[in-house]
């Protein structure tokens, strides 16, 4: 069953569909939260995310765009949590588009190992693109930036990740 069909059944008010939707997306959302915060806070924030999803589902304009909508909510929850904790806005700032020819293959295990050393904006884009396998357009929608900025941020993030991994002793 596609996500769109599941979301439509949820909007009808079918409880089974709501629980199926949570079962399907709980782990990907939690993984994103765990990379952006930490494991302990991810459990807590994931409940807030799902409460917001259940409340917002009747207002979701395009059920086919459920995935970016879901991660936009998760991203907002991360920002709110960081803002609460640090008393200042934690949303990553937009960066100018920069061309970069780096297209090195990024191994998943190495990626996870190096993520913790990256700034929030770069960590987020790597999590969404590589770990959640979201297309560039969805990443752009979630982060609220143009696709071009996503590409340049990905390039910069890969470069930073490579430097971080080299410092930790990984061989290219």
């Amino acid at each position, binding site marked *: *069953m*596609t996500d*769109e*069909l599941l979301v*439509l*059944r*949820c*909007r*009808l*008010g079918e*409880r089974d569909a*709501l*629980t199926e939707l*949570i*079962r399907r997306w*709980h*782990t990907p959302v*939690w*993984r994103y939260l*765990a*990379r952006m915060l930490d*494991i302990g806070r*991810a*459990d807590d924030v*994931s*409940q807030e995310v*799902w*409460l917001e999803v*259940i*409340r*917002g*589902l*009747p*207002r979701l304009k395009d059920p086919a765009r459920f995935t970016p909508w879901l991660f936009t909510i998760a991203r907002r929850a991360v920002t709110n949590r960081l803002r609460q904790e640090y008393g200042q806005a934690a949303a990553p700032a937009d960066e100018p588009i920069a061309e970069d020819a780096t297209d090195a293959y990024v191994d998943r295990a190495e990626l*996870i190992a190096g993520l913790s050393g990256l700034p929030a904006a770069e960590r987020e884009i790597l999590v969404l693109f590589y770990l959640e396998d979201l297309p560039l357009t969805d990443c752009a929608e979630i982060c609220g930036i143009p696709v071009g900025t996503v590409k340049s941020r990905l390039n910069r993030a890969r470069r930073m990740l490579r430097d971080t991994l080299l410092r930790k002793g990984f061989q290219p």
Partner: protein
Amino acid sequence: MNDDPRLSADELIRRLRGTLSPWRRLRGAVALVAGLTGAAFIGLLWATEPGPLPGRLHLAFGMFTVVCLTWAGYGAWAVTRGAPLYAMDRVIAAWLALTASTATTALLTVIALRRDSGLTATLTVGIAFIAASAASLVRAHTRRTALLRRIRELQTRDDQD
């Protein structure tokens, strides 16, 4: 980092069961309908009471009216800001509103006729409430029908693939 959440999906669903409950979603609509119905009923009794009333009775009518309006206010808040109303919930809520407004209008009309007072106001307000409830029922059914049609389309496409 471990890729599996410590909080399982089933545990999360258990924690969210209150929000997932249809009754939880509908209780705001029930409070709104009951509050408005009660306030209209007590208001008409108060307004059409024959003869001068003692001060304590005025106070009692006023307090009952305030209690009913408070429930209506809570219901309005819950419907607009609290638990979401899904398509089937909206249909049920609209039927509740239509039934309550029709029954209340009929009852209040009988009281107004017997007391020979307030008939025009009762009918005007009652018919306005019935019309609003009927309109929301039509809108809720239309929305639900559109959702069901789209679900059938997607299921047919899935079956063909």
